[in-house]
């Protein structure tokens, strides 16, 4: 039995699933992304009960389950909570060319962090708590990639 199994080349069918989706950003997400697109401004939502300012904004507070109806304008800079530099990345997943990384960034005025790209850095500039600023795309279309990436804030000389 083993003999023919070893000799037999098993057939493999190549295929894939390709299904287009159209995901709604919802009313809260649309307000947020419109503000990035039209005004280059980050918005968060504040929980009326615990006072936490959420960025990415959301409709309800996951902690206390209250509705977060109040919008708060946030800074376009903030600090690195944690980061990584990608060294070996799947080409289909690389939105930037050259050296880039990912970070959890807490924007000024927000209590939660969010994940975005980092680029235009020297490795020595990256550390927990380091200041970073948003670099906006020239042509913006209402997507999270209207912010191209974050880069270290240049020291004021």
């Amino acid at each position: 039995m083993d003999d023919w199994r070893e000799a037999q080349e098993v057939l493999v069918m190549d295929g894939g699933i390709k299904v287009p989706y159209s995901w709604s950003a919802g009313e809260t997400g649309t307000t947020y992304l419109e503000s990035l697109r039209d005004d280059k401004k980050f918005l968060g939502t504040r929980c009326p009960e615990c006072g936490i300012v959420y960025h990415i904004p959301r409709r309800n507070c996951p902690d206390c389950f209250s509705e977060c109806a109040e919008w708060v304008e946030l800074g376009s800079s903030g600090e690195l909570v944690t980061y990584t530099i990608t060294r070996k990345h799947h080409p289909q997943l690389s939105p930037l060319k050259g050296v880039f990384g990912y970070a959890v960034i807490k924007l000024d005025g927000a209590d939660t962090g969010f994940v975005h790209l980092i680029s235009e850095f020297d490795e020595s500039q990256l550390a927990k708590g380091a200041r970073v600023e948003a670099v906006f795309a020239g042509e913006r279309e209402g997507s999270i990639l209207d912010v191209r990436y974050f880069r270290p804030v240049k020291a004021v000389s």
Partner: protein
Amino acid sequence: MEPVAIVGVGMTKFERDRVRDTFGDLVFEACTRALDDAGMTIDDIDIVLTGSNDFFDGRTISSMAIMDACGSYDKNVSTVEGDGTFGAAHAVMRVLAGWGTCLYCAHHKGSESVMPLITNAMFDPIYERFLGIDSVTSAALQARAYMDRYGVTEEQCAQVSVKNHGNAFKNPYAQLPLQLTIEDVLASPYVADPIKLLDCCPISDGASAVVIAGAQRAKALDAKPAWVKGIGYNCDAYHLGDRDLSKVDALQAASKTAYAQAGISDPAKEVDLAEVHDTFTYLELMAIEGLGLCRMGEAGEFTAFGNTAQDGRLPVNASGGCISSNPVLVAGLNSIIECALQIRGDAGEHQVDGVKTAVAQGVNGPCGQSQCVWVLGGDE
């Protein structure tokens, strides 16, 4: 908890590119072994539960496609699309609900698709997915947060790779036994800092199965039961920026529940062995701390002193862990099976002496969002 036991276990060998076997072939192999181990036939099974993931399998309702391979026709069937620790917890609940004896199997073939593209798709399609983040880059964010918080070094993480790949030599089911030094791990290339190639698990194919029965049935069998003493599971935030990635809140909460059920008040003293989720080396250190086996931030030193070695005071991943074979979803079930085998004294070459209480841990979701803890024991 009412007494429930694992009365049969079965695993396939884990390998990359198991091209000769379909999903169904793997499931059949694992289920047959579990039934043999329990001294049962498929006719003795009342409930069948399967675990799989549609994206990995490349078919929707993937759980239903292998029903013929696990002998489920005319049986009470349900499916769990999460890690095996959660699936097996569901199996226990079905047994406790009085539906009878349960066969639970989980399968995975990582080699048939493209891992980074699939793990990228677990992230939010509006805010995160376009950024191209995947399981490795997100783990790297957590690794740095954890290492920064406690001053954990890359060398301390590397110990986990050396230890677990070495342990895998004694486990015939493990995929990737490797003789490594800390220097080898440190010299391997960065994939996403601070994670290096030898900090990462491989891509694996395989399946596992368990038979779970209530006390009456378990005691009537010739099989050696491993008793389920406690199970806890808890969830944390989905968005990575919403939680402190350096913390293990969900794991601590799940441990607390599982230990309380098991009557364990001091896990560091009462647990004899642990099988934990170590797809990346830092995760084993976080798991040891989250499970209360040492103090927070001290797992690196705890490991350096040899405590978690196969012959240490509290062996962790004596099987070689996920870093030696990582069939996604099956991985947590493997941890449970390894604990059961250790308690029975049937772990073969990697048997640890005197295991009376063993703990298995599994995770679901990005960066261990959801955590499941099992306590198994030798006595009802």
